[in-house]
Protein backbone atom coordinates (compact mmCIF):
# COMPACT_ATOMS: atom_id res chain seq x y z
CA UNK A 1 0.00 0.00 0.00
CA UNK A 2 1.17 3.51 -0.72
CA UNK A 3 -0.29 6.99 -0.76
CA UNK A 4 0.17 8.91 -4.00
CA UNK A 5 0.02 12.68 -4.23
CA UNK A 6 -0.35 13.37 -7.93
CA UNK A 7 -0.06 16.78 -9.62
CA UNK A 8 -1.74 18.55 -6.73
CA UNK A 9 -2.32 22.25 -7.22
CA UNK A 10 -4.14 24.74 -5.05
CA UNK A 11 -5.03 28.31 -5.89
CA UNK A 12 -6.76 30.80 -3.63
CA UNK A 13 -8.44 34.12 -4.33
CA UNK A 14 -6.98 36.57 -1.83
CA UNK A 15 -8.65 39.61 -0.26
CA UNK A 16 -7.59 41.84 -3.16
CA UNK A 17 -9.21 39.41 -5.61
CA UNK A 18 -5.85 38.24 -6.91
CA UNK A 19 -5.32 34.61 -7.70
CA UNK A 20 -2.59 33.16 -5.51
CA UNK A 21 -0.99 29.83 -6.26
CA UNK A 22 -0.43 28.15 -2.91
CA UNK A 23 0.70 24.80 -4.26
CA UNK A 24 2.01 23.89 -7.69
CA UNK A 25 2.63 20.47 -9.27
CA UNK A 26 3.17 18.53 -6.09
CA UNK A 27 4.11 14.90 -6.79
CA UNK A 28 5.35 12.37 -4.30
CA UNK A 29 4.50 9.01 -2.79
CA UNK A 30 4.42 7.92 0.81
CA UNK A 31 5.39 4.26 1.03
CA UNK A 32 4.31 1.69 3.56
CA UNK A 33 5.93 2.25 6.97
CA UNK A 34 7.57 5.44 5.78
CA UNK A 35 7.91 8.61 7.81
CA UNK A 36 7.82 11.61 5.46
CA UNK A 37 8.36 15.12 6.76
CA UNK A 38 7.26 18.23 4.91
CA UNK A 39 9.40 21.19 5.81
CA UNK A 40 9.37 24.74 4.54
CA UNK A 41 9.21 28.39 5.51
CA UNK A 42 5.96 29.93 6.70
CA UNK A 43 3.54 30.48 3.85
CA UNK A 44 4.87 27.65 1.68
CA UNK A 45 1.54 25.84 1.83
CA UNK A 46 2.69 22.83 3.83
CA UNK A 47 -0.36 22.86 6.08
CA UNK A 48 -2.57 23.37 3.02
CA UNK A 49 -1.04 20.26 1.49
CA UNK A 50 -1.58 18.26 4.66
CA UNK A 51 -5.22 19.36 4.77
CA UNK A 52 -5.70 18.24 1.17
CA UNK A 53 -4.18 14.84 1.95
CA UNK A 54 -6.38 14.66 5.06
CA UNK A 55 -9.57 15.31 3.08
CA UNK A 56 -10.27 18.64 4.78
CA UNK A 57 -9.66 20.77 1.69
CA UNK A 58 -10.20 20.20 -2.03
CA UNK A 59 -7.25 20.61 -4.38
CA UNK A 60 -7.83 22.91 -7.36
CA UNK A 61 -6.48 20.15 -9.57
CA UNK A 62 -4.69 16.85 -9.16
CA UNK A 63 -5.57 14.13 -6.70
CA UNK A 64 -4.52 12.12 -3.69
CA UNK A 65 -5.16 8.39 -3.62
CA UNK A 66 -4.32 5.21 -1.80
CA UNK A 67 -2.78 2.56 -4.00
CA UNK A 68 -3.25 -1.12 -3.24
CA UNK A 69 -6.03 -0.92 -0.70
CA UNK A 70 -9.49 -2.49 -0.89
CA UNK A 71 -11.72 -0.84 1.71
CA UNK A 72 -12.00 2.84 2.54
CA UNK A 73 -8.71 4.03 4.02
CA UNK A 74 -8.67 5.26 7.60
CA UNK A 75 -6.91 8.50 8.49
CA UNK A 76 -5.63 9.71 11.80
CA UNK A 77 -4.80 13.39 12.16
CA UNK A 78 -2.90 15.06 14.97
CA UNK A 79 -3.77 18.76 14.81
CA UNK A 80 -1.55 21.69 15.59
CA UNK A 81 -4.45 23.12 17.62
CA UNK A 82 -4.75 19.69 19.31
CA UNK A 83 -8.56 19.94 18.97
CA UNK A 84 -9.52 17.59 21.78
CA UNK A 85 -13.23 17.71 22.62
CA UNK A 86 -13.31 19.66 25.89
CA UNK A 87 -16.49 17.90 27.03
CA UNK A 88 -14.92 14.46 26.75
CA UNK A 89 -12.43 12.89 29.12
CA UNK A 90 -9.09 11.67 27.80
CA UNK A 91 -10.49 8.16 27.41
CA UNK A 92 -13.64 9.37 25.65
CA UNK A 93 -11.53 11.48 23.31
CA UNK A 94 -9.20 8.62 22.47
CA UNK A 95 -12.01 6.19 21.65
CA UNK A 96 -14.01 8.78 19.64
CA UNK A 97 -13.02 7.31 16.28
CA UNK A 98 -13.73 3.78 17.50
CA UNK A 99 -17.20 4.81 18.66
CA UNK A 100 -17.96 6.41 15.32
CA UNK A 101 -17.00 3.16 13.62
CA UNK A 102 -19.32 1.20 15.86
CA UNK A 103 -16.70 -0.68 17.86
CA UNK A 104 -18.04 -2.59 20.86
CA UNK A 105 -17.60 -1.29 24.40
CA UNK A 106 -15.11 -4.06 25.04
CA UNK A 107 -13.03 -3.19 21.99
CA UNK A 108 -13.10 0.48 22.96
CA UNK A 109 -11.84 -0.40 26.42
CA UNK A 110 -9.07 -2.62 25.10
CA UNK A 111 -7.80 -0.44 22.28
CA UNK A 112 -8.36 2.82 24.17
CA UNK A 113 -6.45 1.66 27.23
CA UNK A 114 -3.67 0.26 25.07
CA UNK A 115 -2.95 3.57 23.36
CA UNK A 116 -3.53 5.67 26.47
CA UNK A 117 -0.92 3.48 28.12
CA UNK A 118 1.39 3.89 25.13
CA UNK A 119 1.38 7.68 25.46
CA UNK A 120 1.70 7.44 29.24
CA UNK A 121 -1.65 8.94 30.24
CA UNK A 122 -3.08 6.00 32.18
CA UNK A 123 -3.36 8.06 35.35
CA UNK A 124 -5.22 10.79 33.51
CA UNK A 125 -7.68 8.78 31.44
CA UNK A 126 -10.67 10.22 33.29
CA UNK A 127 -9.40 13.81 33.28
CA UNK A 128 -10.89 16.54 31.11
CA UNK A 129 -8.57 18.33 28.67
CA UNK A 130 -8.65 21.52 30.75
CA UNK A 131 -6.92 19.60 33.54
CA UNK A 132 -3.96 18.62 31.34
CA UNK A 133 -0.74 20.40 30.47
CA UNK A 134 0.05 21.23 26.85
CA UNK A 135 2.27 18.19 26.41
CA UNK A 136 -0.29 15.87 27.95
CA UNK A 137 -3.04 17.26 25.73
CA UNK A 138 -1.00 16.55 22.62
CA UNK A 139 -0.24 13.03 23.87
CA UNK A 140 -3.99 12.48 24.12
CA UNK A 141 -4.31 13.88 20.59
CA UNK A 142 -1.71 11.39 19.37
CA UNK A 143 -3.45 8.51 21.16
CA UNK A 144 -6.75 9.51 19.54
CA UNK A 145 -5.14 9.38 16.09
CA UNK A 146 -3.39 6.05 16.78
CA UNK A 147 -6.50 4.41 18.24
CA UNK A 148 -8.23 4.23 14.85
CA UNK A 149 -5.16 2.31 13.61
CA UNK A 150 -4.97 4.53 10.54
CA UNK A 151 -3.60 3.64 7.12
CA UNK A 152 -2.00 7.07 7.11
CA UNK A 153 -1.08 9.19 10.09
CA UNK A 154 -1.03 12.95 9.49
CA UNK A 155 0.64 15.32 11.91
CA UNK A 156 0.38 19.09 11.47
CA UNK A 157 3.11 20.80 13.51
CA UNK A 158 1.93 18.86 16.55
CA UNK A 159 4.60 20.15 18.92
CA UNK A 160 4.83 23.78 17.81
CA UNK A 161 2.74 25.05 20.72
CA UNK A 162 4.94 23.30 23.30
CA UNK A 163 7.96 24.71 25.08
CA UNK A 164 11.39 23.60 23.86
CA UNK A 165 12.06 21.07 26.62
CA UNK A 166 8.69 19.40 26.33
CA UNK A 167 9.07 19.34 22.56
CA UNK A 168 12.40 17.49 22.73
CA UNK A 169 10.90 14.87 25.05
CA UNK A 170 7.81 14.51 22.88
CA UNK A 171 9.93 13.98 19.77
CA UNK A 172 11.74 11.14 21.50
CA UNK A 173 8.47 9.63 22.66
CA UNK A 174 6.98 9.94 19.21
CA UNK A 175 9.88 7.98 17.72
CA UNK A 176 9.48 5.25 20.33
CA UNK A 177 5.77 5.00 19.58
CA UNK A 178 6.38 5.10 15.84
CA UNK A 179 8.83 2.24 16.08
CA UNK A 180 6.12 0.16 17.72
CA UNK A 181 3.34 1.03 15.27
CA UNK A 182 5.33 1.78 12.09
CA UNK A 183 2.48 3.70 10.50
CA UNK A 184 2.90 5.48 7.19
CA UNK A 185 3.21 9.07 8.33
CA UNK A 186 3.13 12.55 6.84
CA UNK A 187 4.48 15.09 9.27
CA UNK A 188 4.52 18.86 8.75
CA UNK A 189 6.96 21.13 10.55
CA UNK A 190 8.95 24.31 10.12
CA UNK A 191 11.58 23.01 12.52
CA UNK A 192 14.54 21.63 10.56
CA UNK A 193 16.17 19.75 13.45
CA UNK A 194 12.85 18.08 14.16
CA UNK A 195 12.58 17.06 10.51
CA UNK A 196 16.07 15.51 10.46
CA UNK A 197 15.47 13.78 13.77
CA UNK A 198 12.20 12.12 12.74
CA UNK A 199 12.19 11.59 8.98
CA UNK A 200 12.98 8.81 6.59
CA UNK A 201 12.58 11.41 3.88
CA UNK A 202 12.40 15.16 4.08
CA UNK A 203 10.46 17.05 1.41
CA UNK A 204 11.60 20.65 1.24
CA UNK A 205 9.00 23.11 -0.05
CA UNK A 206 9.65 26.56 -1.45
CA UNK A 207 7.17 29.39 -1.41
CA UNK A 208 5.38 31.52 -4.03
CA UNK A 209 4.31 29.14 -5.33
CA UNK A 210 4.62 26.22 -2.94
CA UNK A 211 6.65 23.71 -4.87
CA UNK A 212 8.87 20.78 -4.02
CA UNK A 213 12.38 22.16 -3.98
CA UNK A 214 14.15 18.97 -3.08
CA UNK A 215 13.59 15.57 -1.53
CA UNK A 216 16.30 14.45 0.86
CA UNK A 217 16.69 10.89 2.13
CA UNK A 218 17.94 10.78 5.68
CA UNK A 219 20.35 7.85 5.84
CA UNK A 220 20.54 7.51 9.58
CA UNK A 221 19.27 4.68 11.79
CA UNK A 222 15.75 5.36 13.05
CA UNK A 223 16.74 5.21 16.69
CA UNK A 224 19.51 6.94 18.52
CA UNK A 225 19.99 9.82 16.12
CA UNK A 226 20.79 11.98 19.10
CA UNK A 227 23.97 9.91 19.69
CA UNK A 228 27.33 11.61 19.55
CA UNK A 229 28.41 9.63 16.49
CA UNK A 230 25.51 10.81 14.33
CA UNK A 231 25.57 14.38 15.48
CA UNK A 232 27.87 15.59 12.75
CA UNK A 233 25.85 13.91 10.01
CA UNK A 234 22.58 15.22 11.47
CA UNK A 235 23.82 18.77 11.48
CA UNK A 236 25.07 18.34 7.92
CA UNK A 237 21.54 17.39 6.83
CA UNK A 238 20.08 20.25 8.82
CA UNK A 239 22.49 22.68 7.23
CA UNK A 240 21.72 21.38 3.77
CA UNK A 241 17.99 21.94 4.35
CA UNK A 242 18.58 25.35 5.88
CA UNK A 243 20.54 26.47 2.82
CA UNK A 244 17.56 25.44 0.67
CA UNK A 245 15.06 27.31 2.79
CA UNK A 246 17.05 30.29 3.96
CA UNK A 247 16.36 32.60 1.03
CA UNK A 248 12.61 31.92 1.18
CA UNK A 249 12.49 32.33 4.95
CA UNK A 250 14.18 35.70 4.67
CA UNK A 251 11.67 36.76 2.03
CA UNK A 252 8.82 35.61 4.28
CA UNK A 253 10.17 37.77 7.07
CA UNK A 254 9.93 40.88 4.92
CA UNK A 255 6.25 40.43 4.15
Amino acid sequence: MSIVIENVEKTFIDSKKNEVTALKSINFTIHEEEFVVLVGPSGCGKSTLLNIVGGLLSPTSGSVYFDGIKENPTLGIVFQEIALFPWRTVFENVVYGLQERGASKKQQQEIGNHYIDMVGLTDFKDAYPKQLSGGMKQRAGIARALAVEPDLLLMDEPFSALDAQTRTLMQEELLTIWNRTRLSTLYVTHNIEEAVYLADRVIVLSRHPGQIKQIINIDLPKTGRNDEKYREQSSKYADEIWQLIRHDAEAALKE
Partner: protein
Amino acid sequence: MEKQKQVITNRVAFLDKKVPFYTSFLGIAGILILWEIVSRIGIVSPLFLPAPSNIVITGWEMLVSGEIYGNLTASLYRIVLGYAIGAAFGILIGLILGFFRVADAIGTPIVYSIYPIPKIALLPLFILWLGIGELSKVTIIALGVFFPVVINTFSGVKSVDPMLVKAAVTFGSNRINVIRKVILPGALPMIFAGLKLAAGTSLLLLVSAEMIAAQEGIGSMVLHYGNLMITSKLMVGVLILSLLGLIFNRALRWLENKLIPWKE
Protein backbone atom coordinates in the same frame (compact mmCIF):
# COMPACT_ATOMS: atom_id res chain seq x y z
CA MET B 1 32.78 51.70 54.94
CA GLU B 2 29.41 51.13 56.54
CA LYS B 3 27.35 48.34 55.05
CA GLN B 4 23.99 49.44 53.74
CA LYS B 5 21.07 47.07 53.34
CA GLN B 6 17.85 47.82 51.52
CA VAL B 7 15.26 45.06 51.74
CA ILE B 8 12.86 44.78 48.83
CA THR B 9 9.29 44.28 49.99
CA ASN B 10 6.33 43.17 47.95
CA ARG B 11 4.66 46.41 47.02
CA VAL B 12 1.62 44.81 45.43
CA ALA B 13 0.71 42.66 48.46
CA PHE B 14 -2.64 44.49 48.60
CA LEU B 15 -3.63 42.65 45.41
CA ASP B 16 -3.89 39.29 47.18
CA LYS B 17 -5.24 40.51 50.46
CA LYS B 18 -7.78 38.08 51.91
CA VAL B 19 -11.03 39.01 53.67
CA PRO B 20 -12.79 36.60 56.06
CA PHE B 21 -15.87 34.86 54.60
CA TYR B 22 -18.36 36.43 57.01
CA THR B 23 -17.59 39.91 55.67
CA SER B 24 -20.12 39.46 52.88
CA PHE B 25 -22.93 38.96 55.41
CA LEU B 26 -22.04 42.09 57.35
CA GLY B 27 -23.53 44.50 54.83
CA ILE B 28 -26.89 42.74 54.60
CA ALA B 29 -27.13 42.26 58.36
CA GLY B 30 -26.27 45.93 58.88
CA ILE B 31 -29.05 47.13 56.59
CA LEU B 32 -31.61 44.81 58.21
CA ILE B 33 -30.69 46.01 61.69
CA LEU B 34 -30.79 49.66 60.64
CA TRP B 35 -34.16 49.10 58.96
CA GLU B 36 -35.56 47.42 62.09
CA ILE B 37 -34.38 50.31 64.29
CA VAL B 38 -35.76 52.97 61.97
CA SER B 39 -39.19 51.29 61.99
CA ARG B 40 -39.22 50.52 65.73
CA ILE B 41 -38.49 54.04 66.92
CA GLY B 42 -41.01 55.40 64.47
CA ILE B 43 -38.87 57.55 62.20
CA VAL B 44 -40.82 56.11 59.27
CA SER B 45 -44.45 55.12 59.60
CA PRO B 46 -45.03 51.32 59.38
CA LEU B 47 -47.62 52.12 56.73
CA PHE B 48 -44.81 53.04 54.34
CA LEU B 49 -42.06 50.74 55.63
CA PRO B 50 -42.93 47.91 58.02
CA ALA B 51 -40.12 46.45 60.11
CA PRO B 52 -38.40 43.27 58.84
CA SER B 53 -39.61 41.36 61.90
CA ASN B 54 -43.15 42.47 61.13
CA ILE B 55 -42.85 41.25 57.52
CA VAL B 56 -41.60 37.85 58.65
CA ILE B 57 -44.47 37.47 61.15
CA THR B 58 -47.05 38.53 58.57
CA GLY B 59 -45.50 36.10 56.11
CA TRP B 60 -45.85 33.25 58.59
CA GLU B 61 -49.50 34.09 59.17
CA MET B 62 -50.18 34.18 55.43
CA LEU B 63 -48.41 30.85 55.04
CA VAL B 64 -50.49 29.23 57.75
CA SER B 65 -53.75 30.66 56.39
CA GLY B 66 -52.95 29.16 52.97
CA GLU B 67 -53.02 32.51 51.22
CA ILE B 68 -49.44 32.15 49.96
CA TYR B 69 -49.98 28.60 48.81
CA GLY B 70 -52.83 29.49 46.46
CA ASN B 71 -51.09 32.48 44.92
CA LEU B 72 -47.71 30.78 44.69
CA THR B 73 -49.00 27.69 42.90
CA ALA B 74 -50.86 29.88 40.40
CA SER B 75 -47.65 31.83 39.70
CA LEU B 76 -45.42 28.75 39.60
CA TYR B 77 -47.71 27.04 37.12
CA ARG B 78 -47.48 30.02 34.74
CA ILE B 79 -43.75 30.59 35.01
CA VAL B 80 -42.68 26.95 34.88
CA LEU B 81 -44.87 26.15 31.90
CA GLY B 82 -44.03 29.38 30.06
CA TYR B 83 -40.32 29.04 30.75
CA ALA B 84 -40.19 25.39 29.67
CA ILE B 85 -42.01 26.05 26.41
CA GLY B 86 -39.96 29.17 25.62
CA ALA B 87 -36.64 27.50 26.45
CA ALA B 88 -37.40 24.33 24.46
CA PHE B 89 -38.40 26.26 21.35
CA GLY B 90 -35.53 28.70 21.80
CA ILE B 91 -32.91 25.94 21.89
CA LEU B 92 -34.46 24.03 19.00
CA ILE B 93 -34.87 27.04 16.70
CA GLY B 94 -31.45 28.38 17.74
CA LEU B 95 -29.77 25.11 16.73
CA ILE B 96 -31.58 25.08 13.40
CA LEU B 97 -30.74 28.72 12.65
CA GLY B 98 -27.13 28.19 13.63
CA PHE B 99 -26.53 25.02 11.69
CA PHE B 100 -28.45 25.40 8.45
CA ARG B 101 -27.40 28.28 6.23
CA VAL B 102 -30.80 28.63 4.55
CA ALA B 103 -32.65 28.74 7.87
CA ASP B 104 -30.15 31.35 9.04
CA ALA B 105 -30.76 33.56 6.01
CA ILE B 106 -34.56 33.32 6.30
CA GLY B 107 -35.06 33.13 10.05
CA THR B 108 -32.47 35.39 11.62
CA PRO B 109 -33.87 38.69 10.24
CA ILE B 110 -37.31 37.68 11.55
CA VAL B 111 -35.95 36.91 15.01
CA TYR B 112 -33.97 40.14 15.20
CA SER B 113 -36.92 42.28 14.08
CA ILE B 114 -39.29 40.89 16.73
CA TYR B 115 -36.65 40.77 19.47
CA PRO B 116 -36.66 44.52 20.39
CA ILE B 117 -40.43 44.65 21.05
CA PRO B 118 -41.03 44.93 24.82
CA LYS B 119 -42.99 41.71 25.21
CA ILE B 120 -45.39 43.04 27.84
CA ALA B 121 -46.76 45.46 25.23
CA LEU B 122 -48.14 42.43 23.41
CA LEU B 123 -50.21 41.25 26.37
CA PRO B 124 -53.42 43.11 25.35
CA LEU B 125 -53.08 41.55 21.91
CA PHE B 126 -52.63 38.06 23.37
CA ILE B 127 -55.62 38.59 25.66
CA LEU B 128 -57.60 39.52 22.59
CA TRP B 129 -56.46 36.41 20.75
CA LEU B 130 -56.26 33.86 23.53
CA GLY B 131 -58.62 35.19 26.19
CA ILE B 132 -57.89 36.48 29.68
CA GLY B 133 -57.12 32.97 31.05
CA GLU B 134 -53.82 31.20 31.65
CA LEU B 135 -52.92 30.80 28.00
CA SER B 136 -52.23 34.48 27.32
CA LYS B 137 -49.98 34.75 30.38
CA VAL B 138 -48.09 31.55 29.66
CA THR B 139 -47.63 32.67 26.06
CA ILE B 140 -46.18 36.04 27.00
CA ILE B 141 -43.68 34.38 29.37
CA ALA B 142 -42.75 31.77 26.76
CA LEU B 143 -42.18 34.53 24.22
CA GLY B 144 -40.02 36.52 26.62
CA VAL B 145 -37.91 33.43 27.35
CA PHE B 146 -37.69 32.36 23.71
CA PHE B 147 -35.72 35.36 22.46
CA PRO B 148 -32.70 35.45 24.77
CA VAL B 149 -32.46 31.65 24.48
CA VAL B 150 -32.71 31.54 20.70
CA ILE B 151 -30.15 34.30 20.23
CA ASN B 152 -27.69 32.77 22.67
CA THR B 153 -28.10 29.29 21.22
CA PHE B 154 -27.54 30.69 17.75
CA SER B 155 -24.32 32.44 18.70
CA GLY B 156 -23.29 29.38 20.72
CA VAL B 157 -23.51 27.24 17.60
CA LYS B 158 -21.60 29.84 15.59
CA SER B 159 -18.85 30.00 18.20
CA VAL B 160 -18.05 26.28 18.14
CA ASP B 161 -14.42 25.88 17.10
CA PRO B 162 -14.35 24.70 13.45
CA MET B 163 -11.24 22.68 14.31
CA LEU B 164 -13.43 20.44 16.48
CA VAL B 165 -15.79 19.86 13.56
CA LYS B 166 -12.80 18.96 11.39
CA ALA B 167 -11.53 16.59 14.08
CA ALA B 168 -14.93 14.91 14.38
CA VAL B 169 -15.23 14.45 10.61
CA THR B 170 -11.67 13.12 10.42
CA PHE B 171 -12.50 10.47 12.98
CA GLY B 172 -15.58 9.35 11.09
CA SER B 173 -18.57 11.48 12.21
CA ASN B 174 -21.48 12.09 9.84
CA ARG B 175 -23.50 15.35 9.83
CA ILE B 176 -25.99 14.17 12.46
CA ASN B 177 -23.23 13.11 14.84
CA VAL B 178 -21.39 16.37 14.26
CA ILE B 179 -24.48 18.20 15.52
CA ARG B 180 -25.10 15.77 18.37
CA LYS B 181 -21.55 15.27 19.57
CA VAL B 182 -19.84 18.55 18.71
CA ILE B 183 -22.22 21.43 17.99
CA LEU B 184 -24.67 20.77 20.83
CA PRO B 185 -22.14 20.29 23.65
CA GLY B 186 -20.03 23.13 22.23
CA ALA B 187 -23.00 25.50 22.30
CA LEU B 188 -24.12 24.43 25.77
CA PRO B 189 -22.26 27.11 27.78
CA MET B 190 -23.83 29.85 25.66
CA ILE B 191 -27.25 28.19 25.87
CA PHE B 192 -26.99 28.31 29.65
CA ALA B 193 -26.04 31.97 29.56
CA GLY B 194 -29.28 32.52 27.62
CA LEU B 195 -31.30 30.44 30.07
CA LYS B 196 -30.02 32.49 32.99
CA LEU B 197 -30.78 35.73 31.21
CA ALA B 198 -34.28 34.44 30.44
CA ALA B 199 -34.91 33.56 34.09
CA GLY B 200 -34.93 37.24 35.04
CA THR B 201 -37.08 38.15 32.05
CA SER B 202 -39.63 35.45 32.86
CA LEU B 203 -40.05 36.66 36.44
CA LEU B 204 -40.52 40.23 35.27
CA LEU B 205 -43.14 39.22 32.72
CA LEU B 206 -44.92 36.98 35.24
CA VAL B 207 -45.37 39.82 37.72
CA SER B 208 -46.37 42.36 35.09
CA ALA B 209 -48.91 40.05 33.48
CA GLU B 210 -50.41 39.14 36.83
CA MET B 211 -50.71 42.79 37.79
CA ILE B 212 -52.50 43.56 34.55
CA ALA B 213 -54.79 40.60 34.25
CA ALA B 214 -55.08 37.99 37.00
CA GLN B 215 -57.19 37.15 40.03
CA GLU B 216 -54.56 34.93 41.61
CA GLY B 217 -50.80 34.96 41.72
CA ILE B 218 -48.04 36.71 43.63
CA GLY B 219 -48.10 39.67 41.23
CA SER B 220 -51.81 40.33 41.68
CA MET B 221 -51.41 39.79 45.43
CA VAL B 222 -48.76 42.50 45.60
CA LEU B 223 -50.94 44.92 43.61
CA HIS B 224 -54.01 44.05 45.68
CA TYR B 225 -52.36 44.80 49.02
CA GLY B 226 -50.79 47.93 47.56
CA ASN B 227 -54.24 49.22 46.70
CA LEU B 228 -55.44 48.38 50.22
CA MET B 229 -52.30 49.98 51.69
CA ILE B 230 -51.51 46.82 53.69
CA THR B 231 -47.79 47.31 53.25
CA SER B 232 -46.55 44.37 55.33
CA LYS B 233 -48.47 41.89 53.14
CA LEU B 234 -47.24 43.69 50.05
CA MET B 235 -43.68 43.27 51.27
CA VAL B 236 -44.26 39.55 51.85
CA GLY B 237 -45.13 39.28 48.16
CA VAL B 238 -41.95 41.13 47.19
CA LEU B 239 -39.93 38.85 49.48
CA ILE B 240 -41.43 35.74 47.87
CA LEU B 241 -40.61 37.07 44.41
CA SER B 242 -37.01 37.74 45.31
CA LEU B 243 -36.69 34.27 46.86
CA LEU B 244 -38.20 32.83 43.69
CA GLY B 245 -35.58 34.63 41.60
CA LEU B 246 -32.81 33.40 43.88
CA ILE B 247 -33.97 29.77 43.79
CA PHE B 248 -34.41 29.94 40.02
CA ASN B 249 -30.86 31.19 39.57
CA ARG B 250 -29.37 28.63 41.95
CA ALA B 251 -31.23 25.77 40.27
CA LEU B 252 -29.91 26.80 36.86
CA ARG B 253 -26.39 27.10 38.20
CA TRP B 254 -26.65 23.65 39.78
CA LEU B 255 -27.89 22.20 36.50
CA GLU B 256 -25.10 23.94 34.60
CA ASN B 257 -22.44 22.44 36.84
CA LYS B 258 -24.03 19.01 36.39
CA LEU B 259 -24.22 19.25 32.61
CA ILE B 260 -20.99 21.12 31.92
CA PRO B 261 -18.40 19.71 34.31
CA TRP B 262 -15.73 20.29 31.68
CA LYS B 263 -16.12 24.05 31.57
CA GLU B 264 -13.05 26.17 32.25
